[in-house]
């Protein structure tokens, strides 16, 4: 998923100069960063690769949260109203986050530690995380006994078949495309030709693609091996949809849910109430709990609003939490420096990796020495600063983030971790060797307050190495459209990308495969390296996720040391807070936010 650049901020009218000075002296900044131990912990918690769990691990109920109590109501502050509730239409983080309470799929991520750091993929509706005997071409899933929709009807293989067939219908256009593409064996949006109207006009996928021999068994049959299927199935986009209760477009407002909570009331743009789903059986579910009686969700709470409300900790905000809102950059150091807030604060990584793309289609950028000079000269501190410091951003080494298996914390090809402000001396030498001192570098930056701030300081750093940086503003609304044009004017520009599941197969192929260069595609740097292309094909066929992860990391190293088409800047992090009466508060690395399933009222 790409990181949206959309920031809506109202133009504030000119404040009278008088209002600005009627304020007291400030106490000075927060304490300086560099918490070595914490850094190491963060790195360590990401080391372990995510394994596929067996049948024993997939058995419910989920392990009790220490100290958990039943009952009570939690009020949830959310920024955006949920545009989609139909699981097949869900592809954004906040909707995925609330879906953990509502929807269940064939597989899911089970937290194997109480801090939300270790996970394995287990069967959710299925008895295990899937079995394959031919290296990932054919996958077999068996449904558990006693699984039901909220209306009490049993979940059968027919529902699973329906779930995947309706993905081909035209009205399903927001969710992830992976499994449809794999079933149809085509990239892009051509997969819809396989079943143009979905299952709604009586046609079905042939048994050679998707087979449901009996009520409990589902078989996926791909032409090429897809060892990542258990990860993909864990996405909310592939959660099960009731065949009987499918109302097509209307399902988006009132889905038939399978999780521990059901929707009692949903006022789009205003509020939502979730209550217990009596037809959910904890014995079938290894992932979820049902401690709280109700969740009252209110929308339109901006980051500043939710932060201030939860900091104040009064009334219903004492049992308040936000699944997806983070602490805004301005309040960040205040929250982190308050010892009373420590037990109410969680933090962790988001899946996004920031990177400065070097436009390989421009003649001057074809010189490797020039690209290396950019990589050495570029200061990443401005980027970290603009978003609130090391609590919001961690200086990146490679393009594989800590949330993805295979991450190597020691990989740091341009010394950014030691010298985050860049190495202008080394860059200057490289640029002189290339004979390109004074090279004009057009830097397209996103026109947000953050973009303006980091781009000016980055330009200052690049200029120290001898580049002639020309900054160009790009409106935030159209930023990604502009930089993904094949014929754009920008030599360098910053983008961010997040993995869809913890495998680099959702990072490296879409971003760096030279064969997917197209107008509007995500190969922003327009890199087309034959070795990278062939390696992508080779690694995509490796069935062992741990081995594949190691190979992706090797390719990451090749890209950054030999190709140098991007310079990683930072791994996105966030800090979230909750009211004082909230128990079981954990930051889940996979959800990239507060884990709603574990919450209880103290």
């Amino acid at each position, binding site marked *: 998923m790409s990181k949206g650049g959309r920031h809506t901020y109202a*133009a*504030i009218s*000119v*404040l009278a*100069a*008088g209002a*600005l*000075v009627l*304020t*007291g*002296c*400030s*106490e*000075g*900044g*927060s*304490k*300086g*960063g*560099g918490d070595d131990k914490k850094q190491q912990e963060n790195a360590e918690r990401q080391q372990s690769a995510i394994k596929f769990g067996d049948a024993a691990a997939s058995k419910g109920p989920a392990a009790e949260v220490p100290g958990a109590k039943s009952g009570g109501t939690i009020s949830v502050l959310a920024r955006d109203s949920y545009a989609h509730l139909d699981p097949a239409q869900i592809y954004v983080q906040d909707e995925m986050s609330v879906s953990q309470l509502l929807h269940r799929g064939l597989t899911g991520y089970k937290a194997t530690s109480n801090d939300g750091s270790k996970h394995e993929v287990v069967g959710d509706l299925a008895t295990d995380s899937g079995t394959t005997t031919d290296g990932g071409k054919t996958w077999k899933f068996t449904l558990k006994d006693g699984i039901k929709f909220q209306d009490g009807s049993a979940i059968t293989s027919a529902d699973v078949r329906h779930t995947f067939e309706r993905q081909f219908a035209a009205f399903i256009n927001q969710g992830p495309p992976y499994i449809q593409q794999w079933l149809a064996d085509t990239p892009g949006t051509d997969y819809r030709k396989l079943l143009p109207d979905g299952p709604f006009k009586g046609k079905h996928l042939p048994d050679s693609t998707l087979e449901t021999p009996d009520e409990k068994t589902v078989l996926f049959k791909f032409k090429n091996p897809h060892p990542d299927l258990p990860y993909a199935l864990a996405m909310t986009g592939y959660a099960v949809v009731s065949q009987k209760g499918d109302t097509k477009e209307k399902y988006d407002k009132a889905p038939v849910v399978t999780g521990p909570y059901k929707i009692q009331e949903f006022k789009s743009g205003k509020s939502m109430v979730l209550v217990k789903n009596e037809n959910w059986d904890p014995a079938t579910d290894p992932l979820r709990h049902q401690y709280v009686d109700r969740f009252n969700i209110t929308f339109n709470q901006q980051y*500043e609003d939710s932060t201030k409300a939860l900091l104040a900790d009064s009334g219903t905000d004492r049992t308040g939490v936000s699944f997806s809102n983070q602490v*805004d*950059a*301005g*309040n*960040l*150091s*205040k929250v982190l420096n308050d010892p009373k807030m420590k037990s109410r604060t969680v933090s962790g990584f988001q899946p996004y990796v920031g990177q400065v793309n070097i436009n390989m289609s421009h003649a001057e950028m074809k010189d490797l020495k020039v690209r290396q000079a950019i990589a050495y000269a570029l*200061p990443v*501190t*401005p980027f*970290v*600063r*603009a978003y*609130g*410091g*090391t*609590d*919001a951003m961690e200086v990146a080494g490679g393009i594989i983030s800590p949330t993805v298996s295979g991450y190597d914390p020691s990989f740091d090809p341009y010394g950014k971790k030691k010298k985050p*402000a*860049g190495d202008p001396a080394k860059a200057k030498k490289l640029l002189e060797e290339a004979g390109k001192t004074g090279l*004009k570098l*057009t830097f397209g930056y996103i026109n947000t*307050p953050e973009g*303006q*701030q980091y781009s*000016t*300081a980055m330009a*200052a*750093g690049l200029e120290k190495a001898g580049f002639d*940086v*020309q*900054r*160009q503003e790009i409106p935030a609304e159209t930023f990604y459209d502009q930089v993904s044009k094949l014929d754009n*004017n920008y030599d360098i520009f910053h983008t961010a990308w997040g993995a869809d599941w913890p495998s680099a197969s959702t990072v490296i192929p879409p971003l760096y495969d030279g064969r997917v260069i197209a107008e509007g595609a995500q190969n922003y740097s327009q890199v087309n390296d034959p070795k990278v292309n062939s390696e992508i094909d080779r690694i995509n066929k490796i069935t062992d996720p741990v081995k594949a992860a190691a190979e992706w990391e090797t390719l990451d190293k090749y890209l950054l040391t030999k190709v140098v088409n991007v310079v990683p800047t930072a791994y996105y992090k966030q800090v979230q807070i909750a009211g004082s009466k909230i128990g079981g508060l954990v930051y889940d690395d996979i959800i990239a936010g507060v884990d709603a399933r574990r919450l209880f009222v103290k």
Partner: protein
Amino acid sequence: MKAEEEQLVGRSPGQLMWIRFKRDRTGVISASVVIFFFLIGLLAPVVSWLYGKNPYTVYADERPELFDSAGVPVQPNGGISGEFWFGLEPGNGYDVFTKLLYGIRTSLGIAVAVTLATVLTGIILGVTAGYLGGKADYWISRVIDFLLAFPAQLFFIASMPVVVSLFVSPRDETPVYVRVVALILVMWFLGWMSLGRILRGTTLALREREFIEAAKVSGAPPGRIIRKEILPNVVTPILVQSTYMLPNFVTAEAGLSFLGVGIVEPTPDWGQMFSKASTELVMQNDITYMFFPGISMIIFVVAFNLLGDSVRDAFDPKTAR
């Protein structure tokens, strides 16, 4: 006993005005404040050369030990110290002292240029309309009415990016002078009408006076009448008006930069310092920063407005306030 030797001295209106002005203590003080601001604006490069810093150095990268990772100065009060007199700007860590000096320079420079341009336009069009009358008066007055009906602030915000994009090649950064010229053009375009109207009215009244009639009868050409007879008589409204207009332009320019359509980082600018001061980062962590642009602008605007009042009083002591 000696006879009083007091003589009657003939004085020009200018001299009279000067004498009256010197007696007005408020006027003199505010005039010196205003002159001080113009001086530090003019001498900003000299001052910062002596001080040894410039407003473009990213101290957050040059001296990382002075900042936390979010770019907030570690020392209290925004890092004020013997080395950085006014502290450091949260974010990229620019030096606030030189930034303020250069910001004053940019803002005052633009305001003075706009004032000169609008005064010139106001004189030309206002006096022409008033002196010629008839069709010329009708059309110029309609243009003034039309432009006065424009919502100025909205027009600035909407037209600044358009004007800027007219000048710049798509591969280059927008040069600072383009933004400056665009700001001057945009503010000039909607800034001259009030002065133009006042001058039209004054000229209209003067045109019917006897000394103009006399000049006309004696065969003086219109150019000479305007230069020698009319202009000297409208100096008062011009001076008074421009002393009111200049601080208005300073705040208008600051307003545009505050809204992000005027001068942008890293070019120092008064208004842009306000917009920086209003960010959540500065509000929560370094409120001291606001004092420097805030207080300096209050002092400047108040002093200039008081100066305008004093100038008016000195020219026209009879009018009661």
